[in-house]
């Protein structure tokens, strides 16, 4: 299966990209940042190529489906969305530590996909209820949302350690932009998920743990959006909330599968 080969190459490129950004953050060497960005784009290209190849291979196997339906495939897609978002905003917000954290998260997602026994990389047929276009849109929107929140998480971590007012303001702007981006996509993800559930299971909402956790995540970010309108709400509080939000994302994604059981146990 060539797609997994290309995807492991992408993993390595992301790893080096993360390393470059870390060196840039620690030693303040701009050239490493540029190399890191170049590698990020290269990794994204390989990642995307692997994704497309996997899609093609599934057709050759007679299964024919977009690769978005198990843990392995969703992690691969998470990395595509994260790398894409960061490449797009890099010009405007080239903050080394944020880049380092984001690329590390992308690298970890890919490495986990490649190495963990729970993330099976075989292309398998879909069980009937998962054969739906709504599911495709659902996964894409959710993972764009999660990727936005991952960048916001990186910015929030840095906000906690930054005392410089100007830098903090810039980070805050990045944080807010990523949160609204993520919030829009998470909302669309929850909505398309509900529409899909309605068409497949006959109920748009059944409080299964994964659904409930995505709603919890949504509430956390809704709190952040509204907290901005309250007097004397501090930037660091918002940063903390955004970190809590990303923990909720992680729990929705991993925790529910390993700790709780439910409908979504496939991914």
């Amino acid at each position, binding site marked *: 299966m060539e797609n997994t080969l290309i995807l492991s190459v992408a993993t390595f490129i992301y790893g080096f990209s993360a390393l470059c950004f870390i060196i840039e953050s620690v030693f303040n060497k701009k050239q490493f940042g540029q190399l890191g960005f170049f590698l990020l784009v290269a990794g994204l290209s390989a990642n995307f190529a692997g994704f497309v190849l996997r899609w093609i291979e599934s057709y050759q196997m*007679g*299964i024919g489906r977009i690769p978005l339906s198990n843990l392995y495939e969703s992690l691969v897609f998470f990395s595509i969305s994260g790398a894409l978002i960061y490449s797009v905003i890099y010009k405007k917000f080239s903050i080394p530590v944020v880049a380092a954290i984001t690329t590390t998260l992308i690298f970890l997602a890919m490495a986990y996909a490649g190495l963990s026994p729970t993330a099976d990389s075989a292309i*398998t*047929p879909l*069980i*009937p*209820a998962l*054969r*739906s276009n709504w599911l495709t849109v659902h996964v894409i929107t959710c993972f764009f949302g999660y990727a936005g929140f991952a960048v916001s998480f990186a910015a929030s971590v840095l906000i906690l350690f930054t005392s410089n007012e100007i830098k903090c303001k810039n980070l805050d*702007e990045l944080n807010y932009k990523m949160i*609204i*981006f993520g*919030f*829009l996509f998470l*909302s*669309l993800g929850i*909505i398309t998920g*509900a*529409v899909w559930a*309605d*068409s*497949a*299971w*006959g*109920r*748009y*909402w059944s*409080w299964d*743990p994964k659904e*409930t*956790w995505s*709603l*919890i995540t949504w*509430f*956390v970010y*809704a*709190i952040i959006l*509204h*907290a901005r*309108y*309250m007097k004397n709400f501090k930037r660091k509080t918002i940063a903390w909330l955004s970190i809590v939000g990303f923990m909720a994302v992680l729990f929705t994604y991993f925790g*529910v599968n390993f700790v*709780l059981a439910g409908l979504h146990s496939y991914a």
Partner: protein
Amino acid sequence: MNTNKRPGIIEIAGIKLWDFFASLKLTIFLFSFIALASVAGTFLPDRIGIMKYLQDKPVFLVKVFDKMELFDIYYSWWFVLLIIVLGINLLCCSFERLPGVLKIVLKKPLPPSIHKIETFEFKKDFTINKNIDQVKELSKKFLKLKRMKTYMLDSKTNFSCAGDKGRYTRLGVYIAHLGFLFLIAGGVAGTMAGFSGVIDIPENETSSIVTLFKNRGKIDLGFDVTCAKFEIVKYENSHTPKSYQSEIIFNKEKENESNGLVKVNSPLKFSGIKFIQSGYGRVVEGKVKISVFDIMTDEKKGEYQIEQGETIVLPDGKTKFTLFSFRPNFQISGMNLGETFIGFILADNREIPVALPVSTPGFDKHRKGDFYIVPDEFKTKYYTSLQVNKDPGVYIVYSGFLLLSLGIFVSFFTRHSCFYIVVESMENNSSNVFCASNSNKNKSLNQEILSDFHEFLEK
């Protein structure tokens, strides 16, 4: 009651109450509380599970939890109440703020005075070597380029104009909030007036009884549902099912007979009730042939043709056996026995459950009775498992989805921006330009548009 002596207190209480419900603090509190309750709900076991675990003898703490409906949080009265209060909070917040926003949305911007320009945060003034008419034309062009609607005021020596775009986008937040209200309303309506359950119908059989989820009992649909045929489509060269479907007839041989196909991902509706293909299985059709053997000699002592639910007397003349049910995949202490019949032996007034797996004929020897029983011959057929839902709130919820998506998009990614220009005619064909820019978000862009304008005039 206009003679009330102390209207002050009631009024103050009213205002306080309104402020309470119109406050964002309440919103954040409710969001947090509902989120935490939801977290608890995903970790606490459900009611059926815990009662089974405790064998219907709940300890004190479990009784208290049960009284607080903690084993069914999402449908508990207090959770629903919190959500309704969230809705009220949202309504009050909107009514509190909407008039102010509508004032801005409905009012065209006024061409400003120089005085007014100075009050803005983002402003710029400069002198330029063009006469006032040239500057006027260029200003109009610039605002048109920025897709702004222009409102102007003219005199010989002075020219003032205001341009704006996206005034209505200020309503985006209210559209999102209205969408959320729809979700609450639709959800509550669905919970109050709908139901959800499952109906299993073997091929060529008819039923009208739905078993509701969460042990909420059974209901009669009031019409008949017949499964005419059930089919599984497999992936090529594989045993994995690709899809499955049931041919359904409603009210067979009655005047309002109606039929259709229920497929995975493609439900069927009849009289406001939705039928969804959710599973399938096999049931026994007709009689089952069983043989009874002596445990010591392995000698066949008898052969019976019985139906499920039927009781027979074994060859010793006193032990009774009841064939209870058929399970396609019977699990016992983690082991899957496959197709298995379940029954009861009644001996010496004691009821003993027995499992009779089809693939392991001697399995019943482990019971160490005088006889062991082996299922011999039987026929099976498919039954279809349909989820049955009635949800009168679903259209409200879908409208909510649309409004919510639209509202979030508009409130995040569009903005209302205004641009103000005042020009004074000077000697030598030059002009003094004062301009200001304002917007409700992305304020840093205001500086850019001011520089853009300056450059545009210089060209």
